[in-house]
């Protein structure tokens, strides 16, 4: 993929000499700060990340058990108007995801109306019949969604993926901002950047709002698989910044359908659990019996309405790649509106006509496993070898229902530190959307991931991607309305 010609978030389409008019000042800052100075600051940020232990583990890579995610010093920027529009789309989408989950595990109107083929739900590994009929406290399913977006032009935003299970990366949003404030204070003096540091408070408020019963002081905890998990830093960071306990399964015990945490002073009842353990491992009595990470009896306590689980078990059906392609219909079905944030065009290989198109155009498409993640198990047609293409052809013919395909998009770029100086690199973006019993909130910012290799479209941290801070620039004449608040959706 050629980088040239892609829309650049700061430089627009014309390159460094003719930046987008709104970002002329920022472009000037980039141009006026010597590259060596930017490099020095970037290295200083990375050294700090290393010392703070902001690391992640790469599975199957024992040599580099702990890595830091490379940090890039040039921020990605949004105008307030762009942000406001994005927010409207995000809120609409997440409300639809919640309505869809409530429906699928309840009445299943959407199946009765024939909008989605039932076998796509019932034969889906992400569908959890174990939680059908359970209504989570306050009817909220997807409390925390990370919606992956890409951009191809000034007004062209597309949703690449909805993450409604345990989306990670929010600690990078916050730590990247801390690093930028320390290393580039002049940016915050010259530009009005919307703050992101309200996120932990908002998250805690979201958790409290969905506590069962009327407990005015619900006990909230973050449940981690432990410090060998790749996202452990984030788990501890979130617990720390909310001032709640970070617990492991061994700290919890379920007795008579009530969840207790074991403290030095004895047991304390737990009301809300932000769990960062996948459904499969959450409760060995309900899901995988061999799980050592889970809490026996947790789902029974949840079913009894004694504890709120964030996010609700069973959410995987909403962010499954096979369901993704129906999202515009899902949004229309529950909201009566057209989708404000469109999907990337998606070919469902399970449908024979689409499969044929995919097979005929493999070298132009990105093919993904519907249940894959982290950049594993995918084919990037334009950069793939002949052998890789023929392997995927065989796999597609053998099990077409396991795959979807999308065109390769000319993802937008942002100036990024390369060995030879600043150069455009492709980015995506993951904002974090919080849903509590009182409505939906989006912190003005998110995680920008950047493909550090020239021309590469793969931004996953496990595949050598990096991150950037994401600025939402506030308009000077507009009061700070960076948050979008929807109508209450609690019933």
């Amino acid at each position, binding site marked *: 993929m050629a980088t040239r010609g892609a829309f650049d978030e700061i430089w627009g389409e014309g390159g460094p000499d003719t930046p987008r008019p709104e970002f002329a000042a920022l472009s000037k800052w980039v141009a006026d700060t010597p590259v060596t100075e930017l490099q020095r600051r970037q290295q200083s940020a990375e050294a700090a990340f290393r010392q703070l232990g902001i690391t992640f583990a790469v599975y199957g890579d024992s040599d580099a058990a702990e890595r830091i995610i490379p940090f890039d010093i040039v921020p990605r920027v949004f105008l307030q108007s762009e942000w406001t529009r994005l927010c409207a789309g995000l809120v609409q989408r997440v409300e639809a995801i919640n309505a869809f989950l409530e429906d699928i595990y309840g009445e299943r109107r959407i199946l009765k109306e024939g909008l989605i083929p039932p076998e796509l739900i019932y034969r889906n590994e992400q569908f959890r019949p174990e939680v059908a009929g359970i209504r989570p406290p306050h009817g909220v399913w997807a409390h925390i969604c990370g919606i992956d977006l890409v951009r191809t032009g000034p007004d062209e935003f597309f949703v690449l993926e909805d993450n409604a299970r345990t989306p990670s990366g929010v600690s990078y949003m916050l730590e990247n901002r801390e690093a930028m404030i320390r290393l580039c204070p002049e940016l915050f003096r010259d530009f009005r950047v919307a703050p992101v540091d309200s996120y932990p408070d908002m998250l805690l408020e979201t958790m409290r709002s969905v506590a069962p019963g009327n407990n005015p002081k619900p006990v909230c905890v973050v449940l981690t698989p*432990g410090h060998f998990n790749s996202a452990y830093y984030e788990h501890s960071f979130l617990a*720390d910044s909310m001032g709640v306990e970070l617990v492991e399964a061994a700290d919890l015990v379920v007795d008579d359908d009530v969840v207790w945490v074991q403290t030095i002073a004895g047991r304390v009842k737990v009301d809300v659990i932000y769990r960062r353990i996948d459904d499969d491992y959450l409760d060995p009595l309900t899901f995988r019996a061999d799980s050592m990470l889970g809490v026996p009896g947790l789902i029974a306590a949840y079913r009894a309405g004694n504890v709120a689980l964030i996010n609700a078990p069973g959410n995987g059906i909403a962010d499954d790649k096979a369901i993704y392609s129906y999202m515009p219909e899902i949004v229309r079905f529950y909201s009566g509106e057209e989708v404000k944030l469109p999907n990337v065009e998606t070919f469902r290989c399970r449908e024979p006509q689409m499969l044929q198109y995919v097979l005929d155009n493999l070298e132009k498409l990105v093919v993904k496993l519907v249940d894959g993640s982290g950049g594993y198990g995918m084919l990037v047609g334009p950069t793939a070898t002949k052998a890789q293409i023929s392997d995927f052809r065989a796999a597609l013919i053998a099990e077409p229902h396991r795959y979807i395909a999308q065109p390769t998009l000319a993802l937008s770029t942002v100036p990024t530190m390369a060995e030879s100086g600043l150069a455009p690199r492709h980015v995506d973006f993951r904002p974090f959307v919080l849903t509590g019993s009182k409505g939906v909130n989006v912190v003005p910012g998110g995680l920008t991931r950047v493909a550090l290799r020239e021309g590469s479209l793969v931004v996953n941290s496990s595949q050598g991607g990096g991150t950037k801070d994401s600025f939402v620039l506030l308009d000077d004449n507009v009061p700070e309305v960076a948050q979008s608040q929807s109508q209450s959706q609690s019933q």
Partner: protein
Amino acid sequence: MLSRTASALYWLGRYVERADFIARLVEATVRLDALSARPAGEAAWQSALAVTYTDEAFAATGQAMTQANVARFLTLDASHPGSIVRCLELARNNARAVRTALTRDAWTAINRAWWLFQSRTSTGGATQTLNLVEQVKGETRGFEGSIHRMMRNEATWLIQLGAAVERADNTARLVDVKYHLLLPKGERVGGAVDRDQWTTILQTVSAVTAYRWLYSEGLRPSNVIDLLINRFELPRSLAACVEEAVGLLSQLAKRTGLQGEADRMARARMARMQKTQTSQVIVSGLHEYLKAFISENAMLDAAIARQFRFI
């Protein structure tokens, strides 16, 4: 506080203290070996292993008893569970598991110490070994400093309690080194080598100056023993460690309401120590006294684990 958190904090304190002690021990042994007028040589390194109860583990590696080999074994050998590098790793694992109970300073201090020794594989000669242990001592001091800037609550006290229990154990082992370290043939008790050995033990616990302050006479083994066992003024003496554990346990009791067997054991021990006469200890057998102290220390450790419901 979670029971698991309490346990991890306590062990964090123990492992950092242990890393510091091993560093001091290696430093002392290098000096004993090289700086004394009559080098103690191999015997010095043998005693360093004996004190840490790792002589068999070292023998199992099949390496010769040289300074380079033993120093590497005690400092950088990742396969030896008692090496500095492993102590720091265990300390860091505990710190990671409970990092929400630590300040950023405390966490980065231990994380930095761990990183510093991750890539090291060779201790080099005596000078480099001394530089290395100096670094370890610097890092553990940094950690201790950060602990003193944490909130004065259960988290801090549990780390300090772990350190106090570990330090008592270490000092007892260190004094016992003289039992393991035989004088070379022809050397008499009170002779030059004997004096070097006692001086080195004082150096290990940074107590040479303290000795001069407290005892107006020249170096006498019975005074060194008195200092390390009975003098509350010296932070590393058995008496001071025992007193510190009592204080920390009662602060924990005040805050958490948890009081029990560990408090009773610690207090009884302190009362006994206040009556202990060094001369009697020496007459009835220093080695036996220290052995009993170490096993009593292990019982206190177990009582603490029960009292705070460690899991």
